[in-house]
């Protein structure tokens, strides 16, 4: 949308029009006895000359700068680039870079989750013939990305880092709950705290009385809804009631603690899907071809500060010159 401002460039013709001098020049010689001749119409010669060329130049620059500021251009200043996701194996990265022939290219290190969106946002900053290589453990986005230029993605899955989830169990029957977490395997490790710590992921409240007001966690599993007034208006999903409170999100199910392995598995999966979020999945190595109809993202205004500074400087200069000319 901003690029439409370039159509305002014909405005530059205005100062050119103003500064063109249609000076009527009668190249007349002096003749003392001209009084003895009949008067005639002056022969007019239209001469294409400029008045105040410096002021004209400044005005043209000022207008062009203003239009550029409005159009918010992106200067394609990036050359060949290798975008490396954080945590990638450096030996593998070097090998891939050498193989692609981009040893001298600029390297950009980014968190793995932001790599593709960053490339998409800054897509127009690369010059036309620049090659773009993305390396590392890039997670698969929910929708297939579309780029306006060719982007090569080489991925190597890295070993996922161990994640600890702290759980505090306040219950008369803690064994029933501990059994539940024994079914958990994979990269996430469930740590059951004896006392509520500062960073709790889950509190299981299996008591009749209300919890102390200071106790907070992002998720509560509650067996007695009477202790939490928020659950009175809770919505339900497959028998699971959920509500938000000042202490954190509350879940309640009448069949808790789960008695069967399947029920335990289902609860842990639900926890993973609905609350923690899906586990990142490394996308396959592939080449995204340049897609003509790709919606280039709106420019981020990278040049606007510089342009604004130039604009102000030119404006001051133009005012000064105009003032000086009137003197």
């Amino acid at each position, binding site marked *: 949308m901003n690029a439409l401002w370039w159509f305002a460039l014909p405005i530059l013709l205005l100062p050119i029009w103003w500064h063109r001098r249609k000076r009527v020049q009668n190249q007349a010689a002096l003749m003392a*006895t001209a009084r003895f001749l009949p008067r005639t119409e002056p022969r007019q010669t239209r001469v294409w000359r400029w008045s105040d060329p410096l002021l004209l130049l400044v005005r043209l620059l000022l207008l062009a700068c203003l239009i550029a500021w409005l159009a918010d251009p992106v200067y394609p200043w990036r050359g060949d680039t290798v975008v490396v996701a954080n945590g990638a194996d450096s030996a593998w990265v070097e090998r891939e870079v050498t193989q692609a022939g981009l040893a001298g290219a600029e390297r950009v290190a980014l968190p793995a989750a932001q790599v593709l969106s960053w490339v998409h946002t800054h897509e127009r900053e690369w010059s036309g013939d620049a090659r773009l290589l993305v390396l590392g453990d890039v997670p698969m986005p929910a929708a297939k990305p579309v780029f306006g230029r060719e982007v090569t993605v080489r991925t190597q899955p890295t070993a996922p880092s161990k994640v600890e989830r702290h759980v505090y169990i306040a219950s008369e029957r803690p064994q029933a709950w501990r059994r539940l977490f024994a079914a958990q395997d994979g990269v996430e490790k469930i740590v059951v705290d004896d006392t509520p710590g500062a960073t709790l992921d889950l509190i299981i409240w299996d008591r009749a009385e209300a919890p102390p007001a200071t106790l907070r966690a992002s998720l509560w599993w509650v067996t007695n809804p009477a202790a939490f007034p928020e659950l009175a208006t809770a919505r339900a999903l497959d028998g699971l009631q959920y509500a938000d409170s000042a202490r954190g999100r509350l879940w309640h199910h009448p069949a808790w603690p789960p008695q069967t392995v399947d029920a335990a598995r289902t609860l842990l999966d639900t926890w993973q899907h609905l609350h923690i979020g899906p586990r990142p999945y490394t996308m396959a190595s592939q080449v995204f071809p340049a897609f003509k109809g790709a919606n280039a993202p709106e420019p981020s205004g990278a040049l606007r500060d510089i342009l604004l500074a130039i604009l102000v400087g030119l404006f001051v200069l133009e005012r000064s010159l105009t003032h000086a000319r009137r003197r």
Partner: protein
Amino acid sequence: MSLANTTLIAHTTKLDLVIRHVLAGLGHGIHAGRERGAGVEFSEYRSYVPGDEWRRVDWKLAARADRYFVREAERDSHVAVWLILDASASMAEPSRSVEGVDKLTYARTLLACVAAIAQRQGDAFGLVILSDGKVTFTPANRGPRHLQRVLAQLQRTTPAGQLPDTATLKASLHFALSPSAIYATSDLLDWPSPLSLALTRLRQMRHDVRVLCLQTQAEIDASFPDTQAYRDPEHEEGVFRFGADLKEGYRRNRMEHFNQVTAQCRKNDMPLTLAAIEQAPGDVLRRWLRRPSR
């Protein structure tokens, strides 16, 4: 004489050099010297009064008349020479055939020659320059140093503007108390003008007024190039064209004007010399200074 032509004026800026060449062809005595030694030119007798010098008593008359008479001479009747230079913008009109000469240069040279002659004869001479609405006045004096002063003043003059108005010019004519010879150079394109009124007035005060009207050969022949437009240097507005079809009209208008000028000068008994600046300055000077035939 051979050297003293108009080209010489164009080739040197040293007025005294030009003067020397121009005057070399003229010789002395072209202008009757008015200076008289004490008692040389007899004026009148008057009766002796005590206190008169004895040597001024005419003894022969005393012997005849038996009374003392004293010879009175015209000691105080020096004639001052006044040079009047019109340096208005129209005097910048150049010669269309001789490169580098314009009316002002020519007029300046001739006035310098007159000043030099006056200096040689021992006359006092002064200079009045009319330029850009102002009057530049150099008082009359004698001697070679004053000549240099006048020459420098002439050399400095540049053509500009119009003639001063009548009131300004009239206020500047205070020199006109003593009898003087007045040499005025102008192109006389404005007539009547403040200058013409002043000259007429001076003539009526019985000064010897001689007017030199400078023209160019192109003006006389009406032979201007018709390739460009022309402008009057003293009147900004208006553009004029010259062409073969306008030649007759130009010549007629000009003739009418100068006939009128000549008639006016004759009527007021002011000798008028018409000269083209392409003519040799010596000849023009001779014509100008010649005692007018009555």
